[in-house]
C-alpha cells in the first residue's frame, strides 16, 4: 500500500514536472500577446489558435488537407520502398551490382531531397506529380542503404547451408535472405517514412499542390494567418508522432521482435 501511494506520488511529480515548461511557455506567450509587442495578426493569442483549430477541424478544411497529404505520402513512400528495397537487395546480394551502384548512391544520398524540388517542378509541372516523385526519389536512398546493409549481414553460413540443401535463388531469397535481413529493412522503412514526411511538408510549399498541410502553412503565410499556421503545425506534429510510433513499431513487434531477432 505504501509503495502504491509512493508510486502514485511520483507519477504526479512526473506529470507536474512534465507540464511545467508548457504552462510557463503558455503564460509567457499570453503575456507577450497582452503587452502587444507583436501585432496580434502575427502573434495570435492561444485562445485564437484554439478557436481556429476547432473551426478548421469542424469545417473539414484540416481533414481534406490531411487526407491529401497522406495520399501523397502513401504513394511517394510506396515508390521509395519498392525502389529502395529492389536496389538495396540487389546491391546486397550481388557484388558487381554493389560495386557499380555504390558510388552513385553514395553521391546522391547526401543531397537534400528538397534541393531537387524546383527541378522536379520544371520537369513534371506543378501539383501532385512532382511532389510524389520527389518524396519517392529522395526517400528511396534511405531504404536502399538499410536494405543493402541488412542483406550483407545475413550470415553466409545460412546462405551456404540453404544452397547445400538445394535451395534455388527464389527460395533462398524468400526463406533465408528476406527474413534474415528484415530487421534492417524495417529500420530502413521506418527512417524512410520519417524522411518522406519531413520532405513532403516542405515540397508541398514549393509545388503548389491543390491542398495539403504544407501548402496550408505556406498559403496562410500570404494572408498573415498565423493562427492557421500554428494549428496546421500542431496537426503535422501529431501525425509525425503517429507515423513514427505506430506504423513500423507495430510491424516490428509482429515480426522481428516476435521472432526474437531484436529486443523490443
Amino acid at each position, binding site marked *: 500500500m505504501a509503495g502504491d501511494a509512493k508510486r502514485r506520488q511520483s507519477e504526479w511529480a512526473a506529470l507536474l514536472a512534465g507540464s511545467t515548461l*508548457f504552462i510557463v511557455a503558455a503564460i509567457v506567450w499570453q503575456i507577450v500577446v497582452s503587452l502587444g509587442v*507583436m501585432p496580434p495578426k502575427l502573434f495570435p493569442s492561444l485562445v485564437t489558435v484554439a478557436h481556429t483549430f476547432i473551426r478548421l477541424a469542424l469545417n473539414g478544411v484540416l481533414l481534406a488537407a490531411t487526407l491529401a497529404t497522406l495520399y501523397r505520402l502513401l504513394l511517394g513512400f510506396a515508390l521509395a520502398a519498392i525502389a529502395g528495397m529492389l536496389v538495396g537487395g540487389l546491391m546486397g546480394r550481388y557484388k558487381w551490382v554493389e560495386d557499380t551502384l555504390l558510388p552513385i548512391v553514395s553521391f546522391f544520398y*547526401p543531397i*537534400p531531397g528538397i534541393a531537387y524540388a524546383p527541378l522536379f517542378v520544371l520537369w513534371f509541372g506543378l501539383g501532385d506529380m512532382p511532389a510524389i516523385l520527389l518524396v519517392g526519389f529522395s526517400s528511396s536512398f534511405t531504404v536502399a542503404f538499410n536494405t543493402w546493409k541488412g542483406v550483407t*549481414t545475413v550470415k553466409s553460413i545460412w546462405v551456404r547451408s540453404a544452397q547445400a540443401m538445394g535451395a534455388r535463388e527464389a527460395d533462398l531469397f524468400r526463406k533465408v535472405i528476406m527474413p534474415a535481413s528484415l530487421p534492417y529493412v524495417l529500420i530502413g522503412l521506418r527512417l524512410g517514412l520519417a524522411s518522406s514526411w519531413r520532405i513532403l511538408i516542405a515540397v508541398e510549399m514549393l509545388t503548389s499542390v491543390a491542398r495539403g498541410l504544407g501548402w496550408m502553412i505556406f498559403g496562410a503565410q500570404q494572408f498573415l494567418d498565423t493562427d492557421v499556421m500554428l494549428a496546421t503545425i500542431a496537426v503535422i506534429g501529431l501525425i509525425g508522432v503517429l507515423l513514427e510510433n505506430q506504423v513500423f513499431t507495430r510491424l516490428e513487434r509482429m515480426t522481428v521482435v516476435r521472432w526474437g531477432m531484436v529486443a523490443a
Partner: protein
Amino acid sequence: MQAPSITTGLIRRTASTQSLAARAIPTLRGVFGAVVLLCVWEWFSQSGVFSKAITPSLEMIFRAFVGMMADGTLPKHAGATLLRVFAGMTIALLIAVPAGMAMGRSKFFERMLKPVVNVLMPIPSLAWVPLIVLWFGIGNAATVLVVVYAATFPLLYNVWSGVRSVNPLWIRAGTVMNASGSRMFRHIIWPAALPYIIIGIRQSFGRAWIAVIGGELLASPDWGLGKLIFDAKEYLNTDVMLAALIVIGALGLFFERVVFQWIEKVTVNRWGMNVGPS
C-alpha cells in the same frame, strides 16, 4: 549492432589476399556505373524528349559550373550556406549539450524536458519556415533558426542517451574516491559521453544540411546554394540548378565521408568506443 565477423556478409574475401587486378575491379565497376549514368543523361538530353532548356547537356552543366566558379559566385553561395550550417550547429551545440547532460544526469530535468522534446522533435523543421519568416523576416536569421531547430534534437537525443549510458560503476568509483561534481564531470561523464556527442554531431549535420537548403529555398536570403537553385528556376537556368545540386552533393559527401569519418576515426574508433549504428 552486430560486430563484424568472418561469417558476416556473403562470401567476402579480405582485400589483402586479393591480387592487384582483383582489387581494381570494384573501382572499375564504380567508374563504369558513373559513366553509364552520365551517358544515359547525355543521350536523354540530346534526344529532345524534354526541351534542352530543362534537361541541359553535360557540357552546358559543366560550362555553368566553370563560369560560376570563375566569377566567384558559386564559392560565395557555398560559403554562405556553410556559414549558416556552422552558425546553426554551434548554437544547437550550445543548447543541446547542456540540456542533454542535464536530462541524463537529473531525473527532474528529464521529466521536465522530455515532453517538450517529444512534442517538438516530430515537427519537421521546414514546417516552421513560413512562420519564422513572418516573425523574423526573410534572410539570414530565419535560415539559421531553421538550422538550429533541425540540428538540436538529434544532438540532444544522443547527448542524453550518452550520459545515461555512462557505466554506473565508474560513477560509483568516482563517488567513493570523493570526486567533486566538476571533477566527476570532467573525468568520468564527459569522456564517457563524448562518443555519443560526436555521433550526434554527425546526425545533426545531416539534418542541418537538409534544413539549410530548404530554408534558403523558402526564406530567400541573399546568398546560398538553395537560393541559387531557387533563382535559377525563375530564369529556367536548369544548367545552373544542376551545377548547384552537384556542389550540394559534393559538399554533403565531403563532410559525411571525409570530415566526420576522419573525426570518428581519430576519436571514437581510436578509443575503441564504437556505439550504435554507424
